């Protein structure tokens, strides 16, 4: 029976949505909201913008899901919609915006990497969390929307290069070169927080 199990777990939900079952799409919304919110929020650095954009992303996905033929996974497809809409939004928004940051989860104090960073890097140990959060977001906003997208997906969300290349519709080489360039830029902005 395991052999006949669908490779893509979303296939059933997508098929039901295409047949007009709105509850199936609700399940997809519940499943992907958290992850897509992280993607859009980390690109916009604004909670309200991220929320509005995400609403539009799901609305667009719902409108066009009957045209979805399953050539790619639903995961890739919906991420692709979210990234493209966010990049377009950022290009329209330009530099006129205010940061509206979410609270930092207090579980960060137990995170292995945070403990490592605070133990080894005196600037991180001395800076309070709010200051670090602000600096990280400011640095991200200095990147172009395309570079920000790659950094968000790779560094923050931990996606592999191959998945990012599928989502953006570019080669893996382009993903790597964008990452290299973005890291070089971020390095200059975050110099004071790096391990000495």
């Amino acid at each position: 029976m395991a052999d006949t199990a669908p490779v893509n777990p979303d296939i059933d939900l997508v098929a039901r949505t295409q047949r007009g079952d709105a509850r199936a799409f609700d399940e997809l919304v519940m499943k992907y909201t958290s992850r897509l919110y992280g993607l859009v929020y980390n690109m916009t650095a604004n909670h309200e913008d991220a929320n509005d954009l995400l609403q539009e992303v799901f609305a667009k996905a719902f409108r066009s899901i009957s045209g979805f033929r399953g050539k790619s996974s639903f995961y890739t497809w919906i991420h692709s919609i979210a990234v493209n809409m966010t990049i377009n939004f950022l290009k329209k928004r330009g530099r006129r915006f205010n940061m509206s940051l979410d609270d930092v989860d207090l579980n960060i104090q137990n995170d292995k990497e945070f403990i490592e960073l605070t133990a080894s890097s005196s600037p991180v140990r001395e800076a309070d969390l709010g200051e670090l959060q602000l600096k990280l977001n400011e640095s991200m906003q200095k990147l172009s929307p395309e570079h920000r997208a790659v950094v968000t997906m790779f560094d923050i969300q931990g996606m592999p290069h191959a998945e990012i290349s599928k989502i953006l519709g570019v080669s893996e080489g382009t993903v790597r070169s964008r990452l290299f360039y973005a890291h070089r830029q971020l390095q200059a902005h975050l110099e004071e927080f790096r391990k000495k």
Partner: protein
Amino acid sequence: MQDDYEDISKLLRLKRFEQPPPDYVESFLEEFRDRQRSQLLREPAWRIAWDRLCAFFGEQMPARLGYGVASLAVLAAGGVASLNILASRPVVDQIAAVQEAPHPVTQTASLNLNPAVELPELPPMAHTASFSIPRYVMDARPVSYEPQSSF
């Protein structure tokens, strides 16, 4: 250099701890349903068709190319529709040609008092038993139900 970038990655990974309020996902779904209902009432049909077309082509190729191919598909559909309309034109042209062809002058008297203005030649009127030419000349005095006045 690799170590430097590794440090940057570690710092960036801390951004995962920036989280929306705990009940965000549930309230998001409710807001989505509300917006969806109100949007469906406002959304024009062409927009829905366009989104579906873009989704169909965008899935098989990069998004930008998908938009391009979708635009081409719309143009092609428009072209085919125009050709169909043009293909039905000869009938209209034939009618126009018949109308433009000089009719033999059969009327001896012309009502056209101004020779500079050409009145269109009308096709001969069909006379049938059930069809009569309207008459605008009063045949008789209209019936009046008012009492006759007498002095």
